[in-house]
């Protein structure tokens, strides 16, 4: 790039470097933030504006097999939400469609338009990694990575059943390398075997035996993966979608899962969906206080909220039994199930959260409670589990809901009153997030949890991914339309106008492993998969622009 840029007069929110609203210059050279640039450098005058690092989405579903089935399934979701092709001075942008599962190009442009510069696709079956990477390569502007589904992996089950822990560590490292992914994801560990192999049965307890693997329980799988990822020193710990998502009374499972980590690092994702009291099959209640308290007191735990936003969503998950259960509550009769051999399940249904529905209003309020009860914004960060709780395009509204007490109260009045009666009286409902806290839960926090040392801050050496907002009373307006967005030092949005296209990179890990593990994986793949072992690993071709994030052991 070889270019320099200086941002002057802006109020800088850079929590990672302890800067809270001070006016200072930010200097950029060759796509990185530097201490200084020559005096004649081109300036962006950010007077009256707020300067933050670019947003980092720690958990979203934007690319790969399930996102694409969701697109094919729902022309109704995007046919009215068009994204036009633009002819820019230097380059043209691609057209596309939006809705809750936008086409790949539109996904990239719209993240950038919101001031987000990094996003992590949260669930891909390793066998289909090429698909995820091809779509991410067609997702412009932002940097991106993805997590591989390892909680229902049959070969790992066999190894774990025989307590072959050393081999598990090598196999997981092999898989991360073979797929160019970022970390491992557990989705309702243990649930696929009864679903696929036992007439759509489900598993509900962490100590339940798993069909066909008598020595195994979800608890054993969780403990094994927590330890494995920790031992490998991955920048981001294991990313867990706990068992019993959405079920009344599931907060106990969530607490048990967090306790199973036994002090080691775990990231519990879309924890709102896992914070319910009540009897199984009965109405849910909020157990946000219990969950928030546990997280506040246990620094090894990080979480993203998975806030529900009213309106259209798409429920798409590796948790196939959950999607099947949701069909009971959806007015839309379309349902997709998609099994991936030896690795994963998948369920997709179109969904809509409605203010008047008790459960939906309770889910919405539970998410807000988690935000408002969290004492450490670095460890409880923003997500909607896009597009499950709502689309990422609703983040500005969510930010306003957190920052603006009166706005929140107004909304509270317009939803199912029985659902929010108890929550409304809580003292925490008065809390208002500050700009600094927003900067933490939308960029600095996720970047730190992901172990991305060059993201989420504005200190020298950081990637020059920067968003500049006009200060505005209406925070929804403020966060939906940044004045400037800079990616790798390039002005993508310049004075509210989309001016420049850019291709971001794939962020992945490459932990070391003993190559002897291939002799263990190879025969299994050749017997029980349908592609040859030597055709499994993706080549560099699928990630033409990439950055390897080192492990703590490298």
């Amino acid at each position, binding site marked *: 790039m070889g270019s320099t840029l200086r941002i002057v007069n802006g109020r800088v929110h850079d929590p990672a470097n302890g800067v809270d609203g001070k006016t200072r210059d930010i200097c950029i050279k060759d796509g990185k933030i530097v201490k200084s640039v020559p005096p004649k450098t081109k300036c962006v005058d950010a007077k009256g504006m707020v300067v933050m690092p670019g947003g980092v989405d720690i958990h979203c579903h934007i*690319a790969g*097999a399930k*996102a*694409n089935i969701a*697109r*094919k*399934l*729902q*022309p*109704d979701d*995007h*046919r009215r939400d*068009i*994204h*036009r*092709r633009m002819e820019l001075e230097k380059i*043209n942008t*691609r*057209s*596309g*469609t939006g*809705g809750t599962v*936008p*086409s790949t190009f539109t996904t990239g442009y719209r993240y950038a338009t919101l001031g987000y510069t990094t996003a992590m696709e949260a669930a891909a079956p390793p*066998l*289909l990694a*090429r*698909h995820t990477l*091809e*779509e991410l390569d*067609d997702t412009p502007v932002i940097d991106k990575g993805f997590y591989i589904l390892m909680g229902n992996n*049959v070969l790992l089950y066999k190894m774990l059943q025989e307590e072959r822990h050393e081999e598990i560590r090598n196999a997981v490292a092999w898989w991360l390398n*073979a797929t160019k992914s970022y970390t491992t994801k557990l989705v309702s560990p243990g649930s696929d075997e009864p679903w*696929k*192999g036992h*007439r*759509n049965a489900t598993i509900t307890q962490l100590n339940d035996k798993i069909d066909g693997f008598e020595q195994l329980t979800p608890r054993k799988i969780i403990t094994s993966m927590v330890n494995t990822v920790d031992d490998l020193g991955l920048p981001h710990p294991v990313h867990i979608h706990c068992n019993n998502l959405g079920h009344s009374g599931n907060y106990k499972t969530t607490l048990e899962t967090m306790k199973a980590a036994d002090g080691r690092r775990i990231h519990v994702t879309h924890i709102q969906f896992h914070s319910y009291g009540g009897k199984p099959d009965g109405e849910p209640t909020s157990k946000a206080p219990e969950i928030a308290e546990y997280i506040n007191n246990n620094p090894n735990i990080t979480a993203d909220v998975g806030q529900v936003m009213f309106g259209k969503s798409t429920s798409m998950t590796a948790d196939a039994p959950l999607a*099947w259960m949701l069909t009971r509550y959806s007015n839309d*009769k*379309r*349902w*997709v*199930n*998609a*099994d*991936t*051999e*030896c690795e994963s399940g998948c369920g997709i*249904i179109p969904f809509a959260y409605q203010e008047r529905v008790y459960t939906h209003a309770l889910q919405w309020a539970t998410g807000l409670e988690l935000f408002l009860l969290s004492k450490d914004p670095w460890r409880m960060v923003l997500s909607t589990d896009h597009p499950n709780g709502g689309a990422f395009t609703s983040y500005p509204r969510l930010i306003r809901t957190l920052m603006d007490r009166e706005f929140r109260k107004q909304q509270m009045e317009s939803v199912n009153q029985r659902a929010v009666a108890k929550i409304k009286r809580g003292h925490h409902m008065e809390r208002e997030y500050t700009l600094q806290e927003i900067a933490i839960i939308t960029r600095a926090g996720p970047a730190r949890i992901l172990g991305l040392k060059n993201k989420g801050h504005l200190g020298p050496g950081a990637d020059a991914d920067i968003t500049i907002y006009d200060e505005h009373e209406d925070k929804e307006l403020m966060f939906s339309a940044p004045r400037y967005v800079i990616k790798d030092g390039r002005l993508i949005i310049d004075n509210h106008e989309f001016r420049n296209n850019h291709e971001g990179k794939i962020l992945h890990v490459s932990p070391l492993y003993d190559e002897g593990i291939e002799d263990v994986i190879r025969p299994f793949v050749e*017997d*029980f998969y*349908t*592609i*040859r072992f*030597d*055709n499994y*690993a993706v*080549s*560099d*071709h699928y990630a033409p622009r990439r950055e390897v994030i080192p492990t703590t052991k490298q």
Partner: protein
Amino acid sequence: MMRVAEKAKSEGNIKIVEDATCTFCGCLCDDMVLTVDVDAKKITKAKNACVLGKALFLNYEEEDRPFALIGGKEATTAEAVEEAAQILANARFPIIYGMSDTTCETQRKAVGLMDMLGGTIDSTTSVCHGPTGMALQGVGESTATLGEIKNRADLVIYWGGNPAESLPRHFARYAVTAKGMYTPNRKKDRTIVNIDVRHTKSVPVADIFIQVKPGADFELLWALRALVKNRHVDPNIEKKTGVSMKTMKDLVERMKNCRYGVLFFGMGLTMTRGRHFNSAAILSLGSDLNEYTHFIATPMRGHGNVTGADTVVAWQTGYPFGVNFSRGYPKFNPGEFTATDMFVRGDADAGLILASDPGSNFTQAAVDHMKKIPMIVLDPKYTHTAKLARVAFTTAHYGINVPGTAYRSDGVPIELRTCLDSKYPSDEEVITAIYRRVEQLLIAKKRSKGANNKRQKAA
């Protein structure tokens, strides 16, 4: 990390390429062992290939054909690129069609070309399982990768398809005689049912053959759905479908009581009366059965990378086929933006055919229109479409000369290996060159239009 394109052993002029992929059909078998005579530029052996795969590999020869033809006369690739770009840049309603026998890398560029031109893009899906794509939008689906079926399925039903002749290794690799985790005794662990209007070569492997009257598939499917839900079915259904109530009830019991059931369906459903209603009925039947057990309903796809075409077009536009960009954004409308209709109605004023031969396999009325408009074709072979085209490129074979990605019919992406070089350019190279030239032409057009406007204002 291993690099897929490099798994080859050489000895003198003989090269062995292991784990190559055959792109003939949607099975996309990736266990080919190819023996290559590098000097003779021939593949002498194709171990593991079926009869179609053997024909593909062993018949391969780099034909000594011109790099391109313009109006039937020999031309260079560069000249043909110029001519093709001129045709496309000057067209008002161009279409790209085909895409099922080329790499995803090419498909991605082709969609970009049409996005820029504001024309239409459609793939062979529209005359294959396009109706199933439409059915999906209405009812969803319960699907699986083929390995899950190999490992678990104990009831496999083929409906309106003849894999023995169109997907020859489907039985052995995936669904009938394949050995899986919970099907160690292969066919003994499965019940195979075949439903068709005629006794095809796929019937002998079946334990049960049900002959349905032509054009009565929908009625049979709907009756089965009703029986699964214990609803009353009018006995006249026997006459209508040619299938006895006893046979239907027996099948329903088998479906409800299996552990992992699969309905594979072919174009006997999508290409006959009912089309997407047939597909929707069978997808719904598969989904309904999940109340009782685990059940899958999934189409069998023909061409090597036709699934890739749907996949790429969907991730780039939100829709699987039949997409038009003339308003500057993607619109989807089967019947309007599908190739047969655009040619039959005479809407298209230029066509680029990418690795397909509609000149041979489209309805006569469509072919008649193709003859009237400037057509561009990219194909390793000389085809009926090439014969009627204004510009015909000779391109290299994907999966033999050209690496890249193809999607198996169940959505598993496979990286193709190469075994021989070709002097001809790849589809991707030609499409990229056309893209660049069209881009220049459109900019020039815009400028001259701007200049004209100024002149008019001045006058």
